[in-house]
């Protein structure tokens, strides 16, 4: 494609034609969801099998690779569209089934109701439509509207479905009017802290100097969250359009995307998208004839959580160790190379595109009083329908976990929901009615964070979870300030002592003291928020800490030093499976002899517990109890 400054209307007309041709040229279309999560579930093998089948049947159909529709619990997913029919979405595929579906539906016109989940668009042949599914009913899909439906490597698909009209709109306004719109929309940053985006832009715009930068923060460090990855892999132009709008408003000529290296597919799709933008005249010199120049560079992260923090991220782009510095001055005043810099999260940039495509009123009309618009979340952990979701702000946690997520796997008892990652908190059942917005969550002791929601059931130990997060932040502490470096380490030692049954009655008080010190005294957000998981679990689940300390008991039976495995003599049939599998050689017994576990040797790996055949169920895991077992193996017949 040659460089052009065609009028946008013409670009859009051609894009719409191309999109329509995809659906109306008489051939069937098969979309396969090939984002990273789909690949982890094996979608590439599914796509191969489909391709082979099409060749074998001599069917001329089109295969389109898309991103992630968010129904990760049903992956691998594909949808099949016959000419002039709605698309049918198939789930939980394996290569063989997928190939058979292609044959059954395209050749024999059997829609394969056994594997069909829904239709896309109107309902069809007794299948519900996607919007009618329980998982979708409470969702509002704005940011994810095209995810899984378009080919992310085709800019035409994005344009045909409304893309880049926001940029055209913004370029028709004065830069300060653009900022005014962002302020009116009341958009708050989606990267965690929820700072009003329009305000940040205004500070940067009014800072002295002509050289300004913008940055897209795609570091997504929260270990358990993948919204940004999914969006970049599924609809990269939605994010990039927002960056161009921002650059125009702020007068920035260069922008950076700082993306973590753990996301190779997102990086690849971003690079493709940037090339296409330049070809279409949305990047480079004199963008769409506006006189505005802008280019975007990609920087790959190198594996450091703290680099998600804005000042550390900037240091990393400058080629230094990614260590934060005290603020003020804020990056909007003095950022990259000391120049005024606006840094926003991936989803924030997509919100900007949306605001200019649909108008600020559209955005500000959704959400709660203090928090406008929608928010994407990755809903994971012990929840039935794990995946990527988008909800209007103000919805309750309960609606998210039960109505959208379908409740707890195996209908076990809900224990806690962790929201906000290592900077967030664990909230108990009584707080499930908390509305999800910036202010309600922080008064509950958590934070909105970037959008990770991890659901935990009765088998999760909250002390273990607090330990897990602190272990994470302690390892990721950059070491610059003493309070964070030493404080998190000392807190971790205390938590370890609790987990291992070595804590005494003073431990909790010490832990709480230290938590306050680290919270107040740390230089950057990493240390200031690191105690949150500990403080919230102490606040809401104190009894579990006390059980560990006073009774040396782990109620969820997770903490290894406080659990014991036993073989119940009455149930053991002497099959020798556990004896053979035990990696520590801790089980004694013989054919038709009741086995026993040598507790001195047992490493608590749980292998015996898992391999004991379900018809015997002879191995038990207990905490805080003692069981009497024979001291030597005895024949099965002779046991009482």
């Amino acid at each position, binding site marked *: 494609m040659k460089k052009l400054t065609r009028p946008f209307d013409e670009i859009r007309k051609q894009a719409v034609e191309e999109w329509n041709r995809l659906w109306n040229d008489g051939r069937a279309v098969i979309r396969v969801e090939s984002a990273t999560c789909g690949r*982890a579930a094996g979608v590439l093998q599914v796509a191969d099998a489909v391709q082979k089948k099409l060749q074998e049947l001599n069917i001329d159909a089109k295969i389109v690779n898309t991103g992630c529709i968010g129904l990760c619990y049903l992956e691998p997913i594909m949808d099949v569209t016959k000419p002039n029919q709605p698309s049918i979405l198939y789930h939980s595929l394996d290569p063989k089934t997928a190939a058979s579906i292609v044959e059954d539906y395209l050749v024999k016109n059997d829609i394969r109701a056994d594997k069909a989940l829904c239709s896309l668009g109107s309902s069809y042949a007794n299948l519900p439509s996607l919007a009618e599914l329980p998982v979708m009913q409470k969702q509002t899909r704005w940011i994810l509207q095209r995810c899984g439906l378009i080919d992310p490597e085709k800019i035409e698909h994005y344009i045909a479905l409304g893309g880049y009209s926001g940029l055209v709109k913004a370029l028709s306004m004065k830069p300060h009017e653009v900022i005014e719109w962002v302020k009116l929309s009341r958009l708050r940053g989606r990267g965690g802290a929820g700072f009003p985006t329009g305000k940040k832009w205004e500070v940067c715009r009014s800072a002295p100097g002509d050289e300004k930068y913008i940055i897209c923060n795609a570091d997504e460090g929260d270990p358990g969250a*993948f919204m940004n990855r999914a969006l970049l892999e599924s609809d990269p132009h939605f994010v990039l359009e927002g960056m161009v709008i921002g650059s125009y408003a702020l007068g920035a000529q260069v922008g950076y995307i700082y993306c973590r290296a753990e996301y190779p597919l997102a990086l690849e799709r971003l690079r493709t998208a940037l090339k296409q933008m330049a070809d279409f005249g949305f990047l480079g010199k004199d963008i769409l004839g506006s006189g505005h120049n802008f280019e975007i560079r990609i920087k790959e992260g190198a*594996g450091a959580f703290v680099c998600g923090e804005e000042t550390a991220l900037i240091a990393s782009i400058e080629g230094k160790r990614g260590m934060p510095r005290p603020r003020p001055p804020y990056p909007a005043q003095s950022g990259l190379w000391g120049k005024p810099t606006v840094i926003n999260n991936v989803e924030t940039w997509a919100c900007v595109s949306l605001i200019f495509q649909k108008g600020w009123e559209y955005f500000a009309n959704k959400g709660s009083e203090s928090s406008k618009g929608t928010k994407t979340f990755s809903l994971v952990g012990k929840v039935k329908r*794990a995946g990527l979701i988008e909800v209007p702000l103000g919805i309750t946690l309960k609606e998210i976990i039960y109505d959208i997520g379908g409740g707890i796997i195996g209908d076990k008892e809900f224990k806690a929901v962790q929201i906000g990652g290592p900077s967030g908190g664990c909230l108990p059942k009584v707080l499930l009615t908390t509305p999800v917005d910036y202010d309600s969550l922080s008064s509950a002791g958590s934070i909105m964070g970037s959008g990770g929601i991890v659901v935990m059931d009765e088998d999760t130990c909250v002390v273990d979870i607090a330990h897990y997060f602190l272990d994470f932040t302690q390892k990721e502490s950059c070491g610059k300030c003493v309070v964070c470096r030493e404080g998190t380490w000392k807190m971790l030692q205390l938590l370890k002592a609790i987990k291992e049954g070595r804590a005494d009655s003073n431990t909790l008080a010490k832990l709480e003291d230290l938590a306050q010190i680290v919270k107040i005294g740390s230089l950057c957000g990493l240390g200031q928020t690191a105690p949150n998981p500990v403080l919230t679990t102490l606040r809401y689940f104190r009894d579990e800490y006390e059980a560990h300390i006073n009774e040396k008991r782990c109620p969820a039976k997770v903490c290894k030093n406080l659990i014991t495995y036993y073989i119940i003599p009455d149930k053991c049939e002497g099959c020798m499976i556990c004896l053979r599998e035990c990696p520590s050689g801790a089980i004694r017994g013989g054919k038709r002899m009741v086995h026993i576990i040598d507790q001195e040797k047992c490493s608590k790996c749980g292998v015996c517990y898992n391999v004991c055949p379900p018809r015997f169920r002879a191995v038990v895991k207990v905490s805080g109890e003692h069981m009497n077992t024979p001291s030597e193996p005895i024949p099965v017949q002779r046991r009482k």
Partner: protein
Amino acid sequence: MINMAEASQILASDETIKVMEILKRYSSDKDNLIPILQEIQKNVGYLSPDFVRLVSKHLKISASSVYGVATFYTMFKFAKPAKHNIKVCLGTSCHVKGGDRILETFERLLEVRCGESSRDLMFSLERVACLGSCALAPVVVIDDTIYGNMHVDRIKPILSKIRG
């Protein structure tokens, strides 16, 4: 005929040539340091003292400054990599879904500890925090292949398939 000493030099220089070619593509601006190190890490697999010296010369900064940056980021390795790299995710979702047991099983079957390579340099084993596929936890990445919904029972077959 070439003797052993010469041969080993030629082998070593193969990697060195690669590094020098990478350096050619970058100006000596200091903000190129991390991208250069990343490209060496990706294409050569590790940062040897020799490579670090070459980088420091190219950017006109001290070798200790290069080390200062390189050791800050977990991506950079300083020893020759094993043939296959196994990354076990211990992000929050994977932790809650039993990622620890997956890691322990790899350690046991490969007889290596997390962060180390097996003696025959066939496998290296490391833990990572989140691979962005949390809905399919627990997750493992071996070389470039990502495995979702991992289960301890799947590990042995996967390893023997890789061993061939």
